[in-house]
């Protein structure tokens, strides 16, 4: 069995450690690229949302490298993501690939079925071993998330912000060649030290921007055109409302195990949106309010074209912008999104934030004198 899975930001690192810990061979899909998207777009229904197109590209590229089993997660509504697995199976069948696809759906009343599938994917019936490996994979994922978060802080203050890009690029390349929990942890540590050695300007004033929106687009740098790097180079510290580790918590630990963080977001969102709308629409509203309360300078919402839950959120955000007096910009991405236009919009937004900051501080200076 040679397993693979679709890319979604750092998740591949956690999943790889998990599967290797269980003694399985993992074929990683090549890093998402223009070519990945081209393949995906060519074989997917035209009007489907962006994540599915990139997934298809990932599978095809992995299968070409020898993968014969694909692991994916699912859901039971209300959003389209719940039908991804069905569509993806059909598309791969049309393309003539003979692969095994194992879907981890929420139990939906049949908990044993989920367990059976997990055992099949893990290639062992030893539940204890499986759980242990899941915990290990989860830990690694959290470490990587922290590493990347840290790199975003450093980038905003670094004298040479591109150095940070190089270090992170190296990390993503090397991580493919190390195996298991120990080696991966070691690499994370080394990378952290490299980041610590980047010279930073302690006195540099940075702006703080929170990123909200559809989870895949936030988490997968390719889908958001590396927004955190672009903003970092403009002297902005970026925080993402959702991280791969929070996605794992959301999907794999539902109900009473759900995170307190999520509940806090729902509570904040309640005056504006009282129920779920699928995807992370409600979290988008909640996170925006939290960022505003934490005195962030601005918020950026990112969503794939036609993303239903985020369109609902998008129509509510102007009220948040007004009530909390914080600039919010919405960016929509699909396979046609151009690098240049995107960069221009980001620059214009950051300019606006700087102007507001200057105005505020000017007033403070005046009133202080």
């Amino acid at each position, binding site marked *: 069995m040679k397993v693979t899975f679709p890319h979604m930001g750092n998740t591949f690192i956690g999943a790889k450690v998990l599967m290797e810990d269980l003694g399985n061979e993992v074929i990683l899909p090549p890093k998402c690229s223009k070519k990945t998207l081209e393949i995906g777009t060519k074989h997917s*229904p035209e*009007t*489907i*949302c962006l994540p599915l197109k990139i997934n298809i590209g990932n599978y095809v590229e992995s299968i070409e490298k020898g993968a014969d089993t694909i692991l994916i997660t*699912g859901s*039971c*509504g*209300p*959003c*389209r993501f*719940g*039908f991804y*697995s*069905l*569509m993806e*199976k*059909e598309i791969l069948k049309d393309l003539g690939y003979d692969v095994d696809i194992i879907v981890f759906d929420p139990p*939906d009343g049949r908990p044993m079925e989920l367990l059976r599938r997990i055992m099949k994917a893990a290639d062992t019936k030893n539940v204890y071993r499986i759980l242990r490996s899941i915990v290990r994979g989860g830990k690694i994922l959290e470490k990587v998330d922290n590493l990347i978060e840290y790199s975003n802080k450093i980038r905003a203050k670094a004298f040479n912000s591109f150095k940070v890009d190089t270090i992170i690029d190296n990390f993503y390349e090397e991580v493919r060649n190390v195996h298991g929990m120990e080696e991966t942890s070691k690499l994370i540590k080394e990378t952290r030290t490299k980041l610590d050695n980047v010279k930073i300007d302690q006195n540099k004033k940075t702006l703080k921007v929170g990123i909200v929106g559809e989870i895949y687009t936030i988490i997968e740098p390719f889908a958001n055109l590396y927004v955190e790097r672009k903003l970092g180079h403009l002297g902005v510290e970026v925080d993402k409302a959702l991280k791969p580790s929070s996605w794992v918590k959301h999907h794999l630990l539902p109900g009473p195990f759900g995170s307190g963080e999520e509940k806090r977001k729902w509570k904040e969102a309640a005056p*504006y*949106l*009282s*129920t*779920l*709308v*699928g*995807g992370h*629409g409600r979290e988008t509203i909640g996170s925006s309010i939290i960022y505003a309360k934490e005195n962030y300078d601005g918020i950026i919402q990112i*969503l794939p*074209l*036609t*993303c*239903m*839950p985020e*369109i*609902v*959120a*998008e*129509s*509510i955000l*102007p*009220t948040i912008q007004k009530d909390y007096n914080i600039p919010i910009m919405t960016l*929509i991405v699909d396979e046609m999104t151009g690098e240049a236009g995107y960069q221009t919009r980001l620059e214009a937004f950051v300019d606006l934030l700087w102007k507001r900051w200057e105005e505020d501080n000017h007033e403070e200076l005046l009133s202080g004198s």
Partner: protein
Amino acid sequence: MTYKVGIPQGLLFYDYYPLWKEFLNELGTEVILSKKTNKTILDQGVSNCVDEACLPVKVFHGHVCDLKDKVDYLFIPKFVSIYKKEFICPKFLGLPEMVKNTIEDLPPIIDIEINLRKSNLNLLKAVIKTGQYFTSNLSKIAMAYNKALKHYERYLDLINQGIVPIEAVKMYNLSLKRNKSFNQNNLNIMILGHSYNLYDEHISMNLIKKLQSQDINVLTPEMIDTDQINQHSSRLPKRMFWSFGRKIIGSAFSAIEEKSIHGIIYVSSFGCGIDSILIDLVERKARENSIPFTLLTLDEHTGEAGVNTRVEAFIDMIRWRGKDESNISTHG
């Protein structure tokens, strides 16, 4: 005084109007309906809604604009689920909020939540909550609702007889019976899509009437028996958790497998997330069974002439194909 309650003629209006109207009337309110969709309503909707929304949601916003200065209340329930373990579209879940946050100076909105995902008991709650806007007399509310349900059942009956909802809306309270059985010699064309796209004459550019006037029997998802629908949609390898999806997939699969139709026209609105999945599933099934399929994607810029040409070409192709087949069968 009699309160005026506004019902926008969009989205679930086509599925539930008789129920809502009779209920609100029985409660002693006056129901005001927005105008039928027209250019002004469409334009107002487009400028009072986020760009990314789909056409019917924009149109709905237009209907709200049309009503808001004429009524004391707007009736925009929050439809989470209308069937066990199912959802409607994410956009319905957030509809009252979308309206409130984009259109200014609105009258109070009756935005009670209707959620039958876990149990039907919630319906009772929703009914009582709505009633309580106008009376505190619980038995009056119950009576009003029961009466409304009777009218509603008559409405569903009419639809089952093959009368399209637009006409059924006009007819449900007349005792007139019309038997519109299908003419055997005509082509049977199935039109798929969401009720608010199919039956809104402006959005669908009168497609149903146009076809009927060309001696074509039109079949819509609403006309297929519910049991048939459920049976066929349950054959999908993944449980269909959208109510619209169950209806569209179930009715399409049932008609395709019974070979009772000559072709399928799917009417979709640009940006519909649910359709992007449903279209693919139906198209595959149609292809496997060699039933011609065509897709009409509508948005605010779609021109009627273009749609007419596409539909005509499609119908011509089917008639031509039909002749061809009968030639083969007589000679072979």
